[in-house]
């Protein structure tokens, strides 16, 4: 035995496995705002799963009540111009809105960060081409680009998702590039090379996971932004097709009723939208803490 250092080591089996669950609890308890955000997020997820089954009225059936009724005991959020139940619609819309934002952000995160990671890691031509590509996308006012894509490809949910994904791409590409390039020659990367990791493995096994914490903040911001973007598209008539309930379209339609005094049409979906974006924005720090091993104790 190496005699110089031989602390009493407990048997290997006794290693405690600090679970992710534990860590989540810790992160949530640590910052009340984060805890709240996670709670709200869970609520939204729950609503998107169970919502359509729980709502009192069918969200797309017209005339479940008299048209344009203010909020009441039977229709909590009132009814819209076609006599649909606003509450049911707001709840039922959760699924689609989450779907749009989560899938759009997921796509842009995966593609964007892989692009950026390659650019940052290998540099040279990869970097130059990616850089120009990203510049090209960024040079469009992003909302207008989304409009163009949706107008060109047709306003289906998939196209809205793709358009949103494309305009979010540059953020991830740039961020991944920056985060990867500052790490491409740090000690643990060199060590990984010495351990016989191929370049790709070094990139995706060692470098890339370390860029996740700041990315999480970006993801959370973008999820909120994606919903707003879809709402904006709805406002200019390029949103999802009716009668699908979607917050953006509901606010956009309801906006026409504000002046005539039927405020509930825009307000409730607007509040839901705001709460969702708010949650996404707040959840960022928590997500970062969650994926950051430094925050583990």
């Amino acid at each position: 035995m190496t005699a110089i250092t031989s602390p009493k080591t407990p048997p290997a089996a006794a290693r405690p496995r600090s679970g992710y669950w534990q860590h989540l609890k810790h992160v949530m308890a640590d910052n009340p705002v984060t805890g709240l955000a996670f709670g709200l997020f869970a609520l939204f997820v729950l609503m998107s799963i169970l919502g359509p089954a729980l709502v009192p009225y069918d969200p797309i059936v017209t005339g479940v009540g008299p048209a344009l009724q203010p909020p009441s005991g039977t229709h909590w959020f009132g009814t819209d111009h076609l006599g649909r139940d606003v509450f049911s619609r707001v709840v039922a819309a959760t699924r689609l809105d989450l779907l749009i934002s989560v899938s759009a952000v997921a796509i842009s995160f995966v593609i964007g960060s892989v692009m950026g990671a390659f650019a940052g890691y290998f540099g040279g031509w990869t970097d130059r081409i990616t850089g120009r590509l990203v510049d090209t996308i960024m040079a469009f006012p992003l909302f207008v680009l989304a409009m163009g894509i949706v107008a060109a490809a047709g306003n289906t949910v998939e196209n809205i998702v793709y358009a949103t994904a494309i305009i979010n791409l540059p953020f991830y590409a740039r961020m991944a590039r920056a985060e990867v390039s500052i790490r491409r020659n740090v000690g643990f990367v060199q060590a990984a090379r010495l351990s016989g990791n191929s370049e790709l493995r070094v990139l995706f096994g060692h470098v890339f996971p370390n860029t996740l914490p700041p990315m999480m903040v970006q993801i959370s911001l973008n999820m909120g932004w994606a919903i707003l973007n879809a709402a904006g598209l709805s406002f200019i008539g390029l949103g999802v097709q009716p009668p699908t309930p979607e917050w953006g379209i509901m606010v956009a339609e309801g906006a026409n009723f504000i002046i005539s005094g039927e405020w509930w049409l825009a307000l409730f979906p607007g509040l839901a939208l705001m709460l969702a974006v708010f949650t996404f924005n707040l959840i960022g720090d928590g997500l970062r803490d969650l994926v950051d091993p430094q925050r583990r104790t």
Partner: protein
Amino acid sequence: ATSDTAVVVFGGTVNSLDIHRSGTNRDSYQVAINCYDRLVTFGTKTLDDGSLSYDYDNVEPELAESWEISEDGTVMTFTLREGATFWDGKPVTAHDVKWSFDRAVSLGGFPTVQMKAGRFTSPEQFEAVDDRTFRITLPFPSKLSLPDLATPIPIVINATVAKEEATDDDPWATDYLHRNPAGSGAFKVNRWDPGQQLVYERNEDWASGPKPGFQRVIVREIPAQSTRRALIERGNVGISQNIPNKDAKELAEKSGVKVVSTPIENCIYSLCTNLNFEPFQDKRVRQAVAWAIPYQAIFEQAAYSQGVPMWGGIAGVDSIAWPQPSPYDYNLEKAKELLSQTDYKDGFDVPLSFSLSHADWAEPAALLIQQGLGKIGIRTTIEKIPGANWRTIALVEKKLPLHMENFGGWLNTPDYYFFWAYIKGNLFNSYNYGDPEMAKLVDETLDMPMDDPRYAPNVTRMIEMAFEDIPRIPLWQPTLNVAMSPDIQGYEYWFHRQMDVRPLKPA
């Protein structure tokens, strides 16, 4: 705005000051109306509700002091008004009229098509006999010729000015007139900020009609509908043109705003079943669809009960009034029974499309139709299609199986409507309806005077066929709604649905 200035707001945009130019949009026609004169115009009548409307049956002089139509009805001779001058002071001559008419039939596109409706197709038909006498020769007599001269297209342009600006590439001075109107009309364009506003200034020397009540009229473009409503409610503007039905209904009940809602002649909001789509080739399927529509609910929720119902009429056709209610009503039993006789007992899937720019009425209507059709097993998915695309696939390519449409003809005769909407290949027959009998009837009737003994039976038969074959299912006749501050009066409804600012005056 002071008492000599009126402010009009609307949701569209004026994209040209020249109605003949290709690409000029509908909102720009108002320039032709307010700034140019035609040879003739329509008179005015008072409707049942006390509001004013143009009178199709009463053609009156505008630039032409008088006219004569030859015995055989093929030669029309107009005598121009003495003292009528263009804005630059030059008298209006028959040469100007000829140049202008030549231009309208030569430029192609919409002006040419509209001229053709009045049987004006070639410059040879127009002749300036002398400075004040203008003659038109028709290939055959038509009841549409004279009224067509009162539409916004056959305007009289200051040919001297225009010719000066014409070039070899642009012999009709479209570039110049696009920005610089040169007319003899009641108003001049004082200022045009495209995308923002158009300011009319009264032509104090106008000879072709009574002096307009306002010295200045500002037409502002306000894209957001709720902004327009706020503006008129707050009294910041004088007139809000073409307001939504809901606003019309609600504002009518408020003090401080006057609302005039006039049913748009000759216009029907309809659901069209495309005969190129297999299930709709079976007449019974189309009829089943017509029986499965919750008309009343649509009328209440999409039209806020503004307009004239076009369903639930009597079984036969006993009048030639157009539009008239179809015999269909909401009757699921009948619909199901009809459908069960066909190959599509279990229904089918079909997209239900409408144009984005019609969304205000088409969307709620489509949603209700969707539910109605769902009850007889026809499953629809709703498609909202943006403007440019709409024209192409709906009207030009005629590819949409089931769609909402809103055609209304300018010339107020049923046969004219049928010509555009029921003859195969014509623009507003977006559903590929083509029946030889209908074609023959329309062809016979289109130019026939209305007092011809064959006229009424022909039209009756057309209407019968339209209801029997029902490719176009009428929903309701819409209204044109205008909100006004009480300080303004004199508003008159016109078939072209643009704001004629000439008769407006301060209260």
